[in-house]
């Protein structure tokens, strides 16, 4: 980690600590955004650094959520213990799927992971005895320390700090991975697998390892999620959610962990915004428009995501963060530098 990452990390920690005080009416809605961010960081390692797509990552999120949900409701485990089997199952599944799947390239990998995600989603819906079927699990115990429970939609700041604390830990781990030998190996695989192999990078091993690591991120996020929310439905494993994770990583800029964080926060807030009628109406009134103009924001969600994703890929495939950086650099070189020089000369 260089100094710029350290500075950014410090700023990020400060922002996390400050948010509940700056936005006291709003911050608890960012709990979901934090959970998305954790998954996006893991997925960024896979998609952005190793260049391998997974259209089924919500499956690992669901595996984490359901494993600890079932252990805590049916077998009365503590959520703190249930994290470990949840991680273990995600690792086993990720190895079993990743070993053969990551031998595939391009479209084959995309479709294989998509099919894997859909299989998990359908099994969660169909295996009623264990998963509760389409209704999912309800009254799952919440995180509890002593008599103290962490609620999802409460105004308590603890849930917010737990979720974002996990994001910070995930971020530190990911930054260390990226700036290690492993990170360099992954980038070499992205830029040219054949060339990387010829230089002695064991590409398939690295690819499976990073797939497993990103599955662990998603599984931990699933465990965090279910014990804050108290319930879960098979929709946490839907392809729709997998693709939302991909959108998050891509919007911010997939070749940079910070890009994934930015993308997850931006897209997460948009997602929450589209899911929340009241907030949309408030905004419309602020902008001086009638409520009826956008009476059902959910209806526009797919169109908006399609347009965001499509235009990103067509015009700034590198993502928002690098694009902004390039734009600023361009501005600096072309305009400001000359002005400064003129000013100095004068």
């Amino acid at each position, binding site marked *: 980690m260089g100094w710029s990452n350290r500075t950014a990390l410090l700023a990020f920690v400060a922002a996390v600590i400050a948010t509940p005080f700056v936005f006291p009416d709003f911050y608890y809605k960012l709990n979901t955004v934090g959970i998305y961010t954790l998954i996006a960081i893991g997925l960024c390692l896979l998609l952005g650094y190793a260049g391998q*797509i997974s259209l089924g990552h919500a499956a690992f999120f669901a595996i984490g959520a359901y494993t600890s949900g079932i252990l805590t409701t049916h077998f009365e485990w503590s959520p703190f213990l249930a994290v470990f089997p949840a991680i273990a199952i995600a690792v086993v599944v990720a190895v079993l799927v990743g070993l053969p799947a990551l031998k595939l390239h391009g479209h*084959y990998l*995309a479709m294989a992971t998509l*099919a894997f995600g859909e299989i998990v989603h359908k099994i969660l819906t169909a295996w009623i005895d264990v998963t509760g079927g389409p209704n999912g699990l309800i009254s799952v115990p919440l995180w509890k320390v002593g008599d103290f429970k962490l609620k999802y939609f409460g105004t308590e700041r603890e849930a917010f700090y737990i979720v974002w604390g996990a994001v910070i830990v995930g971020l530190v781990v990911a930054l260390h991975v990226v700036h290690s030998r492993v990170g360099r190996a992954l980038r070499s695989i992205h830029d040219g697998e054949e060339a990387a192999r010829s230089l002695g990078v064991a590409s398939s091993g690295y690819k499976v390892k990073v797939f497993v690591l990103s599955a662990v991120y998603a599984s931990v996020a699933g465990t965090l999620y279910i014990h804050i929310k108290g319930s879960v439905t098979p929709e946490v494993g839907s392809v729709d959610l997998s693709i939302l994770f991909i959108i998050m990583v891509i919007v911010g800029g997939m070749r940079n962990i910070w890009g994934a964080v930015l993308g997850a926060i931006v897209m997460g807030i948009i997602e929450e915004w589209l899911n929340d009628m009241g907030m949309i109406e408030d905004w419309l009134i602020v902008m001086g428009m009638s409520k009826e103009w956008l009476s059902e924001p959910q209806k526009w969600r*797919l*169109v*908006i995501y*399609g347009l965001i994703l499509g235009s990103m890929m*067509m015009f700034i495939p590198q993502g928002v963060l690098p694009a902004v950086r390039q734009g600023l650099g361009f501005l600096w070189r072309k305009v400001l530098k000359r002005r400064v020089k003129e000013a100095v000369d004068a």
Partner: protein
Amino acid sequence: MEHITITNLLQWIATGLAIGCIYAMVAVGFNIIYNATGIINLAQGEFVMLGSLITVSAYDNWGFPLPLAVLAAVVIVGAVGVGFERIAIRPVRKPTVLILIIITIAGSYFFRGAALNIWGEGVYKIGQFFGETPIRLGGVTIRNQVPVIFVALIFVAVALGLFFGRTMTGKAMRASSYNRTAARLVGVNPGNMVMLAFGISAGIAGLAGAVMVPITQAQYDSGPMLALKGFAAAVLGGLGNNVAAVVAGLLLGVLEELSSGCISSSYKDPIALGLMLVVLFFRPSGLFGRKDLSKLSEF
């Protein structure tokens, strides 16, 4: 779960063949774009969904006679395919596989969202084309629509065979998929061929959507599952091979109905998709393909 008897087995096979025809048509749609460009169009299922919903609207709301309603679905969805290629695929500056996959995902989101806004969340269907009296063959009951779907599939297969084998345009398309530069040297414009491929593929999807809607019904979000099953059929056959895709589509349909009858209908999708994964993992060139034929495409 029903008892496994000969009659039941035959019934499941008959139903499976009908569903298989639809998968086969979706698979052929995948193949045409794949052959022309090396892209798997993840919005293919949405084209089928649009075909179904347009047929319903044209027949029920615009008062079109049935053949004209089907034609409207083919033409409109075909035009949507052409428009998609021109607006979203062609202007891409650096067409890597990852970027193209994501653009077709974006397309599928956009079309699904557009359908949601036009048709709402309702489930739509129209009556079978030739009345509701089922055909009885021994103990097996076949729905009236099944022969229609079968004829549509045969029509698509024969028409494509003639198009790619006999016409100048079809040969030009094949030429530009084998070697873009060489095709350009003999006066073929590969860009137009890609656009044509999207148009034909979407048109076939529109036709599939139109003939299947009396049986399967249609909703704004029925696309992704159709796309996955169609892709499964295309992979089972070996990506790019249309004849094999038809056989594989029928096989997949039958297998799905059999597993639904013998095991449980809620596990039919995991079984079909699991089979696709096994084939992808262990025989990526398809059930009928030779190993050396799985070539790397241009993109």
